């Protein structure tokens, strides 16, 4: 039995980890996805195959990488392929079950912008495409994570197309592998999913302690809400124990560690303020 409370970040990571099923081939990215992949691989999904965009396939994270070609990923990795092959012989060919993508901006049909916060070339530039358009086009399912409040009515730039204008527009376009597209968006306020017919994003579950109004405040369109609302998973001890063993001794511990500590302090202060 764990005595220390599960933090907000830990709950988000476990939620992401649960999206990975045993046996999935999963493309991870730096930050939360790799933590999620590590938790899944070491708990409920030991037969999952973890890969990085840099071409490192079937690796076993025991120290957290800060770069997708980090030396920490080459620990006991199965093999490496070149960048070309990650997207073609693995993803396009049909071997990629899940991909994780970080979101800068998103619209209601899951279209993504990670390039410019305005009309290029003069607009503020963010990190740009990387391999996101390929993973989004080819993975059987894509799991999105977003830290900020990047919901927008209209994207200034579409880096990675999601369900386009909704409905069957993505399928009909003939551009993407059939059945691909985003399945879920996880944010610190909730879990969002996409309606199977309209493909419009809706709120599926609220983060514990967050109200619907707080979610709506970030979203410029009239957000639909699942009825009844789903819920975040309840972390198992083994997941949290593994995560805490992994995170404190990592190269990544400083940012995450601080976030974890800050979240914990904030929570304590909130509790104090509300007299609980």
């Amino acid at each position, binding site marked *: 039995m764990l005595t220390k409370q599960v933090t907000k970040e830990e709950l988000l990571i476990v939620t992401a980890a649960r999206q990975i099923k045993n046996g999935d081939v999963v493309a991870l990215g*730096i*930050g939360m996805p790799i933590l999620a992949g590590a938790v899944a691989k070491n708990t409920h999904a030991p037969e999952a195959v973890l890969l990085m*965009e*840099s*071409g*490192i396939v079937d690796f076993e994270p*025991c*120290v*957290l990488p*800060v*770069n*997708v*070609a*980090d*030396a*920490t990923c*080459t*620990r*006991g990795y199965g093999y*490496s392929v*070149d*960048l*070309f092959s*990650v*997207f*073609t012989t693995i993803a*396009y060919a049909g071997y990629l079950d899940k991909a994780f993508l970080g979101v800068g901006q998103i619209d209601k049909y899951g279209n993504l912008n990670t*390039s410019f916060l305005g009309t*290029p*070339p*003069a607009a*503020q*530039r*963010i*990190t*740009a*495409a*990387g*391999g996101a*358009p*390929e993973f989004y*086009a*080819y993975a059987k399912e894509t799991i999105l994570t977003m830290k900020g409040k990047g919901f927008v009515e209209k994207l200034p*730039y579409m*880096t*990675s*197309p999601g369900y*386009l204008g909704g409905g069957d527009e993505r399928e009909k*376009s*003939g*551009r*993407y*592998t059939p059945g691909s597209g985003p399945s879920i968006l996880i944010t610190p306020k909730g879990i969002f999913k996409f309606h199977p017919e309209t493909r419009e994003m809706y709120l599926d579950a609220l983060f514990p302690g967050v109200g619907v109004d707080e979610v709506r405040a970030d979203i410029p369109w009239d957000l639909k809400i699942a009825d009844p609302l789903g819920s975040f998973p309840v972390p198992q001890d083994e997941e949290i124990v593994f995560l805490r063993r992994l995170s*404190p*001794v*990592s*190269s*990544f*511990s400083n*940012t995450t560690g601080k976030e974890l500590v800050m979240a914990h302090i904030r929570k304590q202060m909130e509790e104090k303020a509300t007299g609980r």
Partner: protein
Amino acid sequence: MAEYLYNEEALENLRIKDTSVLDRLVDFESAREAHLKKEHAKKDKRMPLDEAIATFVKDGDVITDGGFSYVRTAHQAFYEIIRQGKKNLQMIGAPNTNQSFFITYGLVTHSHSSYTGAEMRGIDKVYDRALKAGRITILSEWSHGGVAQGFKAAQLGVPGLLSKQMLGSDLVRYNPYLKVIQNPLKAVKDPAVFVPALYPDVSIIHCHAADKYGNAYIYGPAVNDLAVAAAARKLIITAEEIVPENDIRYNKHGQIIPFFYADAVVEMPFGALPGSMPGCYYWPRQWWEKCMRFGGSSEENNRIFCDEWILGTKNQYEFIEKLGGARWIAEARRQTKAAEGDNEDIDFSYDEYTLTHDPGRYY
């Protein structure tokens, strides 16, 4: 020179008037010409770094980023290009993270953009500032899969590849090289992107070991480098060590770049610094934090940082001295072994550089 029918919407969106600046990257005829002319014989191609850069990197060249951002990238050779002040360069890569060192000195003036940032350490503010100030022009926007496909087409020896990559993305509307066409064999709607073979002028690839002829061995992910080696008009190999040919032939079972692509072979221990070299040394994390956070904070600070580390050092040995000398080497080796589980100590904690806290050391 051949004529090209570039994607006009992209030319307009990127405000490119004179398209001749785009030609070299896709000019197969001149690439083949360069390959025909270069030394084919199996000769000793060793030379010092400054000579290799002076001989094979010319003003106006299209250069490539290599490795993966800060893993097995030929940073020390890049710094020599900066020290020699090569001008009007274009840069392409997947990722294309290291162009900002050149942009700082106004040397890379044209970018074939893909990913620019430092992952956990944030967005590249140097590039953003240069774009807004008009000191750099974007010639084409890419995804990693797109760039990889262009280099691979060159390696395969085909004019280009039809692929499903980047379809529907605004990247296609901001890339003059890309055209969307219908799959000619399909009766139903099946759009595909024609990605042309890409031929950069010069690539510098840092490897773990090479023989004097240029057979070069890579441990860990090769990323785009095997394709780039074949695609480039000129190739400089920098290697952690120069080994007898026998060693490559009989002992190594990794990924090999064949010698006939290579124009120069440079013995370059610690050539990936300040990046990582898998199996050899881990990167100085505080250095990159300082680069992104202090250098990112203003143009003046960026210049101070780059002047200190790039112009302020003559070679990798002076760079190592600034990082902490023998102590840094020992720690960097311990860390990289720890990262791969080759030693007992996997404590990766370190003293992080922030704008309010400079630990003053790089391990």
